[in-house]
């Protein structure tokens, strides 16, 4: 069977997931019925109409121009956070436009008869301190139930990831945790211990001004050169330098980088790698764990969106041009559903899309493209939601929230029904399977992502699951796959503290402001949320409204 580029199933699996999965799952090339399903990404075609020379005619412009006080282009977490902040300040004349058919960006979620499920971001680490905009949002939705004397938040128990939380599949059996302890040598364990002690020490570090070195959002942390120098080397180089050679530890750090940043330690800056291990703790004090919901961060999207009235947001609308006019901005847009042009004039605009889109949309940048735009690198991902008529069986430790295959290039799967308030594990479920295309050449990786069709992704998902769950073929009823071409900003060495990020945050003419997780350099809810609120507060200041900041 030719699947992609004439590869056999076995070759395809070996190329995407590694030889171990291919050996375990494709021993018998016996014909099997394909699981029904589909690719569900739609926005790619519309989005590509932005690109010059994409072969399509330039989009027409509307004759009628609608006035709006504040326009937000982009309905992901950053745009929604900006809207949430503006609504919190009582701004009414507000319009948010989203290209996709649903709000949320990579925090979008879906739902079927069995369960809600995430299409991307699926958890939020509990804030270390009860302050800042993310904590405020969690209060609003009842996820933080109180504040302790030491300033740490009390989190609603049912929202923290239920035990058992994580397990690892290795050569025929599941083991608890994400570090492979089974068969670890004394040296492996000694290195793990030293690594953990090192992270505890780094997480407690303060700079000369008393700022935590690794903080959430990273703007709150230290920008002292002493630490930001770590951004210039890769996490793999840092491990090497510090004498961390244990293959299991390297695997663990690699997994962390691939899971949070979409690329292995050799392609991620050491500063970002260390941030991952140190930002959510302060010395011995750890945060309360991960908050999660069946729909993942779709729950947070719902909370942010609930601040908007129906007339204040539209989906399926692509803002393709922003032109300065009379101290404000003219926004030309395309209604992808009605296939009709739209035009707006806004006094204030928040552009809440990624930099690679801003380069096409902000009209002055088309002729004078700022150099900092080229520093932004985005990694592609595939996410599959797999519906099963019951939980899959496996040997060893029981099924967890996060289930990872040690010998696969995928990130494993998360169980959407894990947080259900029921005490039985009988019945259908949805598993969300993650695969980052983590090669250095992101353009080639994007091609690889889009060339693989449903047949290929179905074969990959099933091969990955089959290796750990014999008999899973009989349980899977449907697979849906989302291909994210630009899933997340990649904190490659030199990016986070290289200057481009700070330059890209500057507003234009006091009326066009920018918000997105890429401005934080890390594709995380807290970054997108913080930059959304920051941009909204710039809008409020420009509109002359005096408000107290939510950022502090």
């Amino acid at each position, binding site marked *: 069977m030719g699947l992609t580029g004439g590869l056999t199933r076995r070759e395809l699996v070996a190329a995407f997931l590694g030889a171990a999965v291919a050996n375990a799952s494709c021993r018998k090339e016996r014909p099997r019925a394909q699981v029904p399903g589909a690719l569900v990404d739609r926005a790619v075609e519309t989005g590509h109409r932005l690109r010059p020379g994409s072969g399509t005619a330039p989009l027409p412009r509307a004759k009628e121009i609608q006035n709006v006080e504040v326009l937000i282009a982009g309905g992901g977490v950053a745009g929604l956070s900006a809207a949430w902040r503006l609504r919190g300040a009582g701004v009414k004349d507000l319009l948010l436009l989203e290209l996709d058919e649903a709000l949320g960006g990579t925090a979008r979620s879906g739902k079927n008869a069995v369960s809600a499920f995430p299409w991307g971001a699926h958890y939020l680490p509990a804030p270390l301190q009860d302050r800042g905009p993310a904590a405020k949002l969690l209060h609003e939705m009842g996820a933080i139930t109180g504040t302790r004397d030491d300033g740490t938040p009390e989190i609603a*128990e049912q929202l923290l990831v239920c*035990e058992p939380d994580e397990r690892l599949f290795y050569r025929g059996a599941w083991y608890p945790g994400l570090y492979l302890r089974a068969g670890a040598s004394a040296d492996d364990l000694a290195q793990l211990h030293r690594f953990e002690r090192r992270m505890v020490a780094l997480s407690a570090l303060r700079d000369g001004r008393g700022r935590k070195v690794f903080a959430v959002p990273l703007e709150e942390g230290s920008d002292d050169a002493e630490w930001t120098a770590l951004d210039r080397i890769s996490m793999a180089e840092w491990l090497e330098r510090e004498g961390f050679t244990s293959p299991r530890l390297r695997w663990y750090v690699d997994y962390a980088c691939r899971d949070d940043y979409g690329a292995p330690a050799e392609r991620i800056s050491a500063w970002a790698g260390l941030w991952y291990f140190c930002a959510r703790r302060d010395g011995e004090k750890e945060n309360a764990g991960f908050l999660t919901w069946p729909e993942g961060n779709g729950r947070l999207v719902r909370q942010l969106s609930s601040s908007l009235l129906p007339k204040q947001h539209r989906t399926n609308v692509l803002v393709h041009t922003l032109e300065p006019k009379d101290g404000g901005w003219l926004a030309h847009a395309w209604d992808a559903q009605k296939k009709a042009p739209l035009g707006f004039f806004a006094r204030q605009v928040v552009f809440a899309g990624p930099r690679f889109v801003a380069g096409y949309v902000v009209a002055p940048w088309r002729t004078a493209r700022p150099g900092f735009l080229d520093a932004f690198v985005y990694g592609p991902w595939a996410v599959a939601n797999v519906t099963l008529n019951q939980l899959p069986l496996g040997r060893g430790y*029981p099924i967890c929230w996060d289930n990872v295959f040690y010998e696969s290039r995928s990130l494993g799967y998360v169980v959407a029904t894990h947080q259900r*308030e029921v005490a039985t594990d009988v019945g259908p479920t949805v598993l969300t399977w993650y695969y980052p295309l983590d090669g250095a050449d992101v353009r080639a990786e994007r091609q690889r992502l889009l060339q693989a069709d449903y047949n290929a992704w179905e074969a990959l998902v099933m091969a990955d699951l089959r290796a750990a769950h014999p008999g899973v073929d009989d349980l899977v009823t449907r697979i849906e796959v989302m291909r994210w071409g630009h899933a997340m900003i990649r904190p490659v060495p030199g990016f986070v503290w290289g200057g481009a990020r700070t330059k890209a945050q500057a507003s234009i003419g006091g009326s066009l402001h920018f918000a997105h997780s890429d401005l934080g350099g890390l594709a995380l809810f807290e970054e997108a949320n913080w930059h959304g609120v920051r941009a909204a507060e710039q809008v409020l200041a420009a509109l002359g409204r005096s408000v107290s900041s939510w950022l502090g």
Partner: protein
Amino acid sequence: MNRSLLFLTVLVIATCGLVYELIAGTLASYLIGDSVTQFSTAIGVYLSALGLGAYLSRFIERAVARRFVEIELAVAFVGGISAPLLFLCFSFTGGFRVALYLVVIAIGTLVGLEIPLLLRILKDLVRFKDLVSQVLTFDYAGALVASLLFPLILVPKLGLVRTSLLFGLVNGAVGLWSTWLLRPALGEVQRLRLKAVGVCALLFVGFVMGERLTWFYEDQLYADDVVMAKSSPYQRIVVTRGRRGFSLFLNGHLQFASVDEYRYHEALVHPAMVYAPSHRHVLILGGGDGLAAREVLRYPDVETITLVDLDDAVTTLGTTWDELAEQNGHSLTNRKLKIVNTDAMQFLAEGDGKYDVVVVDFPDPNNFSLGKLYTTRFYRLLKRRLAPGGTVVIQSTSPLFARQTYWCVVQTLEAAGFWTRPYHALVPSFGEWGYVLAAPEPRSRVHPLPPGLRFLDDETLEGMTKFPPDMSRVPAEVNRLNNQVLVHYFEEEWRKWD
């Protein structure tokens, strides 16, 4: 002599031979675990036994056809009873591995004898090169048939025991049939046919009773006779009977023994009932056997009982199986009682009715699913469903065998904002057993005990709260959804006793 029919015989005996071999391998990996090792050693032993059989065939010099039929009947018998025999060995004796390899060697040797003998029978009828080619073709074709049938049809449809008996039967039938096929070479056939019929009849009876045989070997895992066994989507339910009455097991864990369950259930139900100012509306979580409900119904002023049990197989058993219905005083068919077959946590989270007394009688927290039913989250949901003045009682494992587990339940209830009154009672089938009476505010006793109790009186009721030093309170963490410490405590502590 019809040659093509003889080759068909080759096909059948080859199929049967491989099926026996697959059964032995599968059984070994079922019962011992480690499927790769078990399968490959079983196959290795089988193949070498084939060689042994082939070697031994040279010592058969006379009456080759007759020996051939006899060997076929022997294969039919040994192969046919192999699976039930091995199951029995597993239940009865410690020597399962020895039995397994003996059976594999016996079958392998006998099957190994078959083909050389057959070749010798046919050597005068067929040219040698055709003979070898055709016999081996059918032999390998038979292996293919077996390897396809076994995983696709036989195991899923029939199970191992009946597959083994069925193929023994087929094998025996071929033996019987070959008494006609080889008639000229056999001499006197009456006795041979009788033997064949005997083997077939034996295996046929076994096949028909196969269902009950499965039951029979489960019997051996329990001390008493198994009188009822069924599987629900959630658990395996087994009832056993001995001289002192009957017992109910869920997934192999004893739930009650009829001889002393009154101690367990009186101690479970009455403290909560006499400490609650009102007991008009009672909720029982778990307790699908109806025995706790029987105790609740001793109070005439009880108006409604809501019994929430996940598994309708258990509540059906308590309703329709006469002996249990008698034991629970037909409580499950009482008009005051309503059965709700749903998840207890979901029931608490999704409803809003209030109850005066809640009896929590779940299985011990031996896995993460059950562990959820002992968390602060669960107890907070429970508190929300209590009427003013309401009380709760929780069966909380043994404070003697699982001391930290027991006190962890107390600690967790307190962390969820409950006042607690821990107590314990001796239930011989279980040992020292622990309960926790709890309420949102401290309470004291307001009602007398009902008449007719066999275990509890006023003095016993007071005495139960005293914990001797070996059961007294030990520090424990709070059991939450995101740590499930209780499951870890439980596993650790019971491991010492098992």
